[in-house]
């Protein structure tokens, strides 16, 4: 075991909304290790790392680097001290090339004024070669796949002399194959003497190739372990304090009539690219149809056209036989469509309004909640108190503003509102992204309940486990097309799905056509 190079002691961080993200956390790493930082969403992992990288200032505690006390007030200080971070959401300029992105901020110059692009390319190539990264440095970032973007981020940090590299949930956006590749590269980095902090909540990855693990729960550190000494079950128990079984029990689906028909739907985006390319499928009531795919392959456009946020052509989308192209969102909702949006803070809630106000945004004008000219405040309170209870939204009172809630509880607000109308069709877009295990389990169970109550559910998720666990049948999207249809989700493996998601394999048109019911 190497010597300790960095330690964070008694770190406490309170966010302006009153959430205690870190509560006297201790964390230390030794040179040349891959150190996993695991915990549920909202356990405080990202916050701790943001403090280390100078993006947040802690209220209490200190950071020691090589035994020397260090005050990291900004990312610049962190970089100067050899700390680099690859964020969950990439911070790259899409219109620039890989090489340009790598040197951004420390560009080689000709004279004082001009960029030396040739030198930038050589620098980037040398760097990629040194670490065995297979990458075309002349390609534009907007054209390269997610996995490669991540490599660019890592190279960017390395060019700035990062000895300690923080990776914030690096595998969240990767396919199984890309994940595999990332691991190989990280091991090369480790052999070259770099130290890696790896934030994750995918236990098998952690178990596979990390040396030590720090487990966080509820803003506190639950201790440091050698990976070989603990099993996945142990880690899981420490993370959540109980044995989580994330398999939702459900009976076989009994689909009946077709609720949603999508026929030859094509959508051309503002850049002239076909985001959706001649898509046809059906969703019947009593079934959950999953949509798998790497993000950005048309899922968002699909969801937005069905829910009315984007307009589509005539007779492309029908709900119970009714053409929706002429309907507004209000009319669609009146038809019985509910929508859990991908971006909950932008579309799902108004964060400065109360839980109560957020819970009635789709029912505020209904007769039941109104009394002549005025809203029936008592009825509204009763309804929302019930929803808060039924959906276990953790809050002091429904009059609290939504932004004071944790991510999981905010999502429960969205789910409660969308489910309360007993929809005919629910479009759920990443319904459990970025929320804790407890809330995830709860929402998934509710989704299955909704299906059993004869709703049709279209489930879009980048989380493979989720689509495979919940969906009765599954379609895979790649570059705006449906490339595969599996009538029974239980019969496919994650690896197989990965091949379709990456466009390596494609089913025949007949096989795909199986998802079209009349």
């Amino acid at each position: 075991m190497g010597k300790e190079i960095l330690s964070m002691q008694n770190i406490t961080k309170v966010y302006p909304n009153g959430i205690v993200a870190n509560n006297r956390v201790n964390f230390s790493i030794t040179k040349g290790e891959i150190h996993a930082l695991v915990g549920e969403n909202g356990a405080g992992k990202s916050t701790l790392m943001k403090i280390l990288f100078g993006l947040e200032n802690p209220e209490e505690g200190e950071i020691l680097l090589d035994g020397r006390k260090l005050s990291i007030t900004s990312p610049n200080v962190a970089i100067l001290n050899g700390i680099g971070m690859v964020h969950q959401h990439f911070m790259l300029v899409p219109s620039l090339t890989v090489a340009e992105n790598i040197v951004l901020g420390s560009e080689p110059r000709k004279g004082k004024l001009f960029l030396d692009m040739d030198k930038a390319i050589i620098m980037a190539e040398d760097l990629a070669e040194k670490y065995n990264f297979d990458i075309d440095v002349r390609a534009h970032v907007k054209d390269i796949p997610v996995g490669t973007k991540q490599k660019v981020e890592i190279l960017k940090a390395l060019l700035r002399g990062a000895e300690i590299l923080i990776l914030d949930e690096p595998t969240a956006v990767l396919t199984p194959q890309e994940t595999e590749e990332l691991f190989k590269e990280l091991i090369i980095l480790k052999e070259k003497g770099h130290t890696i902090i790896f934030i994750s909540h995918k236990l098998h990855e952690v178990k596979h190739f990390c040396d030590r693990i720090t487990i966080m729960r509820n803003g506190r550190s639950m201790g440091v372990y050698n990976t070989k000494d603990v099993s996945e079950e142990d880690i899981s128990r420490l993370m959540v304090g109980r044995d989580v079984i994330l398999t939702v029990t459900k009976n076989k689906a009994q689909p009946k009539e077709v609720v949603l028909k999508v026929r030859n739907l094509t959508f051309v985006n503002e850049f002239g690219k076909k985001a959706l390319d001649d898509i046809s499928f059906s969703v019947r009531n009593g079934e959950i149809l999953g949509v798998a795919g790497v993000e950005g392959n048309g899922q968002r456009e699909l969801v937005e056209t069905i829910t009315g946020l984007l307009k589509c052509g005539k007779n492309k989308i029908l709900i119970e036989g009714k053409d929706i192209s002429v309907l507004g969102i209000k009319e669609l909702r009146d038809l019985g469509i509910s929508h859990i949006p991908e971006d909950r803070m932008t579309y799902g809630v108004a964060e400065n309004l109360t839980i109560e106000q957020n819970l009635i945004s789709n029912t505020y004008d209904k007769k039941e909640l109104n009394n002549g000219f005025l809203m029936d405040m008592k009825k509204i309170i009763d309804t929302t108190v019930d929803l808060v209870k039924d959906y276990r939204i953790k809050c002091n009172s429904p009059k609290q503003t939504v932004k004071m809630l944790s991510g999981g509880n905010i999502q429960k607000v969205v789910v409660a509102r969308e489910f309360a109308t007993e929809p005919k069709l629910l479009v759920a877009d990443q319904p459990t992204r970025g929320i804790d295990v407890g809330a995830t389990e709860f929402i998934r169970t509710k989704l299955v309940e909704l299906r059993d109550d004869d709703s049709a559910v279209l489930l879009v998720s980048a989380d493979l486990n989720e689509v495979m666990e919940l969906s009765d049948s599954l379609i895979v999207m790649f570059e705006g097309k449906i490339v595969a249809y599996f009538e029974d989700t239980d019969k496919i493996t994650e690896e197989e799905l990965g091949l379709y998601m990456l466009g390596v394999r494609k089913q025949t048109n007949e096989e795909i056509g199986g998802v079209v019911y009349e």
Partner: protein
Amino acid sequence: MSKNLRFDILRTALAIGIALFIALVIILFASKEPFTAISQLLIGPLGTVRHFGNVIEMTIPLVFTGLAVSIMFKASQFNLGAEGAFFFGAIGASIIAMKVALPIVVHPLVAILVGGLIGAVITGIPAVLKVKWGASELVSSLMLNYVALFLGLYLINYFFRDVNAGAMVSLPFLETANLLVLIPKTRIHFGIFIAAIMTVIAYYYLYKSKRGYEIIVTGENIKFAEYSGIKTGKVILMAQLIGGFIAGAGGATELLGMYTRFSWQALPGYGWDGVIVAILARNNPILVPIAAFFLAYLRIGADLMSRTTDVQNDVIAIIQGIMIVLIVATSFLSKYRHKMIFNEAKENLGETAKEGK
């Protein structure tokens, strides 16, 4: 949350305190008779019934424009057309008051209604431009105020001018149109009731009706509103029409209550002041009368001060400026707030720890 409200009140009070303090220091240095000046500014309006009456008289139009701006701001529409709407509403009401013979009670009501409708047109134009073509309502309403001013003056000076009067004023109003003066020795008029009724209606509309709910949701997060099925274009338009109506009705009320002819040759400024009132009241209709009274009190105090001492009433501009900057600046006292949250969070942690184990 009550904690938030308490913090807001504290912040507003502190902002007012600091602004007053700075103004007093300036007076102390600038004036030869600082103590008379300060006492005139702070307690002058309480001196006589007439002076206190002046405060109430000024409060009335400020309530109208404060409500108008609050409703528009609540929808996140920064329409500054309340000024033009107030002015042009007054013009419309004057014409009714001069030229249309109606019985008492009915006459002022019709005039105020017409004033309100005209006001709605003035703020409605930028609203339509915004909804249809995405033109910034801030810019277009600002410019439109001057169109309203000069168009109004043209109408009065060319078609309704009293040529026998010594000044540029309109024909006198018919007597049936005037609003009743309520308290002798002052000009406090029936408009105070109309303002009070408007306040109550605005409060209920905004906080207790479904249309008001639409305004609030749209103003907080327009994407969320659209996603929820709210027709945001309609809401944006509606909020501004209502704002304009209230401002226009305010102009009409002011004119019928305080004047016997139309005599303004410039924008009266109540629309701009409505912005200050709305900010002080945090766009809450129920707080608007308090904020309007406060501003009117300051104005009358400053007026008395400048009449009796060597300090000009421009001092009021300093007070207003500092006040608004401190209230609008979100980071003012944010450290204190953060500490408050931090301490509270710590307390809660202690409690849950005890409960937990």
